[in-house]
């Protein structure tokens, strides 16, 4: 199954987004990575790499929140032994779409990435 990694500057935000995504994509393999590991707001590449490798069997789609999360996810992917891509998508909506797409029997990294990035065009009002 294609894995999903949710990266946020906040540990609780990442965990919360995973919680919501699991409501709609119950079987999806989702890892949540947030904060710097020592209680600060931010991101570091080490824990992102570990999360990617933990769900890497059939590739990974990474959802990120703000600026440095993108850079640290890219650095983590360069160092990870896995086929992983960063989705250009809003983190919550993208994670929901990706979770649903990942549970399809024919899911690939490409199809899950595409589903995540479809969330860019979703209008809220």
């Amino acid at each position, binding site marked *: 199954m294609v894995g999903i990694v949710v990266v946020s500057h906040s540990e609780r935000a990442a965990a919360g987004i995973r919680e919501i995504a699991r409501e709609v994509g119950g079987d999806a393999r989702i890892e949540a990575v947030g904060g710097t590991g020592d209680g600060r707001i931010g991101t570091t*590449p080490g824990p992102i790499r570990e999360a990617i490798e933990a769900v890497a069997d059939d590739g990974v789609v990474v959802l990120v929140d703000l600026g*440095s999360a993108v*850079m640290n996810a890219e650095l983590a992917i360069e160092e990870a032994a896995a086929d992983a891509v960063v989705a250009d998508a809003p983190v919550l909506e993208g994670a929901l779409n990706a979770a649903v797409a990942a549970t399809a029997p024919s899911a690939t990294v490409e199809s899950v990435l595409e589903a995540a990035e479809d969330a860019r065009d979703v209008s809220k009002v």
Partner: protein
Amino acid sequence: MDQETQTEAVRTAVEAIADRLADEKDHLTDLDSAIGDADHGANMDRGFRTALERVEETDGDPADLVKAAGVALVSEVGGASGPLYGGSLMKASQELEDGITADTTVAFAERYLETVEERGKASVGDKTMVDALTPAVHTYRKSIEVDDREPIDALGKAVDAARRGVEFTTPIRAKKGRASYLGWRSVGHQDPGATSTLYLLEELLDVATEYVDGEVAIDAAADVEPDELPDAEDAPADGGE
């Protein structure tokens, strides 16, 4: 310089940078509290303290030490400065595998700039570290390859170019990073990343001068053409919000 002296010079440079960032911690945080998330000083201080520990316990050539410093920054700094400073040192360290010479330092500087630009997707005028780094690297290369200056002299000119680059970040509007969310409110504030980049270069110049025993006179303020910088007053001409 033999390899042992070069290795010692790298350790001395990391120590000088760590000391400087400890001194400037509050100043960098003040700059970052105006347009960012007020953690740049603390992050850089913590990152370079760890980098210093790593280079002190690492054996090897200058490239190994610079790489070790980069790895430490990536894991400790957090935020965007971790991958930008650390990731770029890791990549650029490959250019020092044959030691520290005029040619390898030019290659190092260019690789570092290239990696920062790729990772941060920023260019000159975005109000980021690139505004200090780009004129510094271009000035360094031109001084060595075109003007045939000694590396220490070229570094002096690069520092001066970086200083002008830092000044240039004050009047312009941020287009990258957390400061970009402020839009026009970012105008009038000096960029913290460009400032810490200048501190790194100033300390490198100090240590390099120490290692060539002051053989070359440095007049950093002399005849530098900051040709990489657009005019500050033209920069925010892309319309408002």
